[in-house]
């Protein structure tokens, strides 16, 4: 399937492309257009008015999770991080604001939008792996040390 979005992808577009490729369609292809342009036969994402866009305060990454019924809790957590990065919402997650800075930096490393997606891939793989490990540790590891102060 072909997907398209706006040029100069920031965190939500990078993460959404990664999500589509890893979990929806390994052969997904991406194209970049100017704001407001349309591409026949391709699905828009993170564009104004698109189904796969921001709705009710959720980001595009989360719209893709919902649409494709991806129910992996680590992906849901990644979605919250992406949202808080994209919307500069420090109350949603602690990690978000750092991600915003990091992904803005990717844009300065490459003038080519596909190049930015390529740079983002290993970062998102790493983030996802870390979230999975953290979840596993929380689910199976010692939940609270005996005698620890209640919070």
């Amino acid at each position, binding site marked *: 399937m072909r997907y398209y979005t706006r040029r100069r992808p*920031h965190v939500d577009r990078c993460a959404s492309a990664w999500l589509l490729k890893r979990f929806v369609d390994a052969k997904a292809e991406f194209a970049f257009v100017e704001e407001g342009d349309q591409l026949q036969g391709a699905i828009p994402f993170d564009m104004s*008015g698109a189904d796969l*866009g*921001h709705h009710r305060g959720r980001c595009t990454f989360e719209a893709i999770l919902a649409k494709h019924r991806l129910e992996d809790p680590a992906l849901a957590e990644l979605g919250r991080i992406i949202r808080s990065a994209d919307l*500069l919402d420090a109350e949603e997650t602690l990690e978000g604001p750092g991600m*915003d800075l990091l992904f*803005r930096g990717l844009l300065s490393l490459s003038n080519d939008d596909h190049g930015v997606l390529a740079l983002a891939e290993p970062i998102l793989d790493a983030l996802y792996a870390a979230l999975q490990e953290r979840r596993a540790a929380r689910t199976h590891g010692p939940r609270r040390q005996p005698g620890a102060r209640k919070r």
Partner: protein
Amino acid sequence: MKREWALLVYKIPPHPTRLRALVWRRLQRFGAIYLQDSVCIVPASSELTENMQWIADEIREMGGEAYLFRAAASSPPQEARIEGLFGAASRAEARRLLETVGGVARRLRQAGSAASLAEVEDELRRVRQGALKLRLRSHFPAAEEETLHRRLRALRDRVDRQALRAAKRR
């Protein structure tokens, strides 16, 4: 060089009233400044403009109206006034937080027991969070913000030292 701004003009259906508050909170979070009711502004970086665009879309989904402009002030003094509004918002919030920091510092001096020290630590954590959020949404930070961050670092060091001393006594 002339600065560009993303200027949002919107109208929200009066009911339910929470929609108004919801939009206000979202805009506030990334440091938009109200020029008057339902007219607000941020520097037109690609990211902030995008955030405004999403909010404009959402306002329309709520049944309201929203118009987003890229705008420049008509003269340098006009531009300076707009920047001044951002600076004033940063100053007001930094001063509010500095007052809280002063209160926390006083309570730290009086904190004798481990329990009261723990309370001071909690208060400090809250005000540090407030300062971080302020930094994220400050596009023209006032000098008071720097003072705030410096005081917070110093206060955190004092709290840490006092906690260590208390632990040794035990």
